[in-house]
């Protein structure tokens, strides 16, 4: 059972959470303008990375809030937990994603216990 560090409540066992699959999939602003292929891509096609993977979880039996997790799908190691909207913390060996504006705060998850 995974131990997940909810950015709002702290470390809790996996059974308190529900899984939301791949993170950072933006709903198209204007679905009507999409081709069938683009719509299928949004609805069904998923990154299914072997290795570092960005995914969503919801703390169903706690604060009921969604957040993102960067987890390795081969080792189940959780590299980072970050709030929706926060900049993506880099995966091991990945260059930090250059933010458009310099981020004022460090991502919540990298600061242990942030927001508890």
């Amino acid at each position, binding site marked *: *059972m*995974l131990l997940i560090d909810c950015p709002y409540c702290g470390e809790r066992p*996996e*059974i308190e959470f*529900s*899984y939301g*699959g*791949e993170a950072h999939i933006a709903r198209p602003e204007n679905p009507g303008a999409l081709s*069938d*292929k683009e719509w*299928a*891509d949004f*609805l*069904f*096609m*998923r*990154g*299914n*990375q*072997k290795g570092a*993977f960005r*995914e969503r979880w919801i703390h169903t039996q706690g604060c009921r809030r969604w957040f993102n997790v960067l*987890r390795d*799908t*081969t*080792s*189940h190691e959780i590299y980072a937990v970050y709030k929706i909207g926060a900049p993506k913390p880099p995966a091991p060996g990945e260059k930090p994603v250059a933010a458009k504006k310099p981020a004022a705060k460090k991502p919540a998850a990298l600061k242990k216990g942030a927001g508890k």
Partner: protein
Amino acid sequence: MLEKGWIGGGNTGRNTTIVRSNYLFDESAHLYEKSLQLFEQLSQELNYNVMMSQRGVMNLAHNLHDVRESKRRVFANKLNGVDAEWLEPEEVKAFCPIIDISPDARYPVMGATLQKRAGVARHDAVAWGFARGADARGVDIIQNCEVTGLRIDNGRIVGVETTKGFIGAKKVGSVAAGHTSVICGMAGFRVPLTSHPLQALVSEPIKPIHPCVVMSNAVHVYVSQSDKGELVIGAGIDAYNSYAQRGSFHIIEGQMGALRELFPIFSRLRMMRSWGGIVDTTPDASCIMSKTPVENFFINCGWGTGGFKATPGSGWAFAYTIAKGEPHPLNAAFTLDRFTTGALVDEHGAAGVAH
């Protein structure tokens, strides 16, 4: 044939061996029924005993919705020439005397579908039997050889890179189950698959006590007893994506609770070992046997939690697809395009108990 591990070391050697064909939609019923018919002659055809045991599979109904859905499936199966019966609770008890059908159970048994021709087959024997058969027909089977890249020239496949070097090929078929997304990633396209752990476990061997296969959607467990005497038990996937071939313990604990609910007499048995495989699930719980955006590169995947029963039929139809460059009518509905056209084959009900 290239295998990164050993023959049968993937999901085929890890599955709970249930074989049935009572799927809801015409497209699936035809494909799985073809497969069941091939299973019925497989030992003779391969000259290898795959221990096909048609001891009957019951799918239990525990609420009114289950009852309606199950009866609908029985009728649909009959229309497709697939044997199916509806059993009332007393008939369930007669078919499997150790099951608890008391009306005050937390999830009372309100009936079941029964497919008598369904059952179990020995998974290792199926893998080895096919390997022997392929070998006898001149197939080179190379184990411990991982495909690490696909060489594509002008949108057409010309071979594969492997840990043992490059192999040129006019056509390539991928049947990599949980690793299909990784392979397709090498070709630069995405597939509607997510890879999840599916766990199973066996009890210590006991004298025969469980005569058939019982599956329950609602309490979520399925169980049979192997010829060695072990109870073979499975249920649903772990929710998260994974390639680790292991899952979380609460999944096992949940299925043990469900098992005890249906079979109170199993409470004192000890479980011997548990394991996981990585299953490739699709949005509509149906397989994908299809051409791809890369010419002469074909995929057979998306069997998720339930492709063992399809093994002979899926191999048969996939061989046709590769040979002709076009799907056979049996797998014509299971293309990659269906996610664009919307013609899904939604088998979540029949595949429901994660398999």
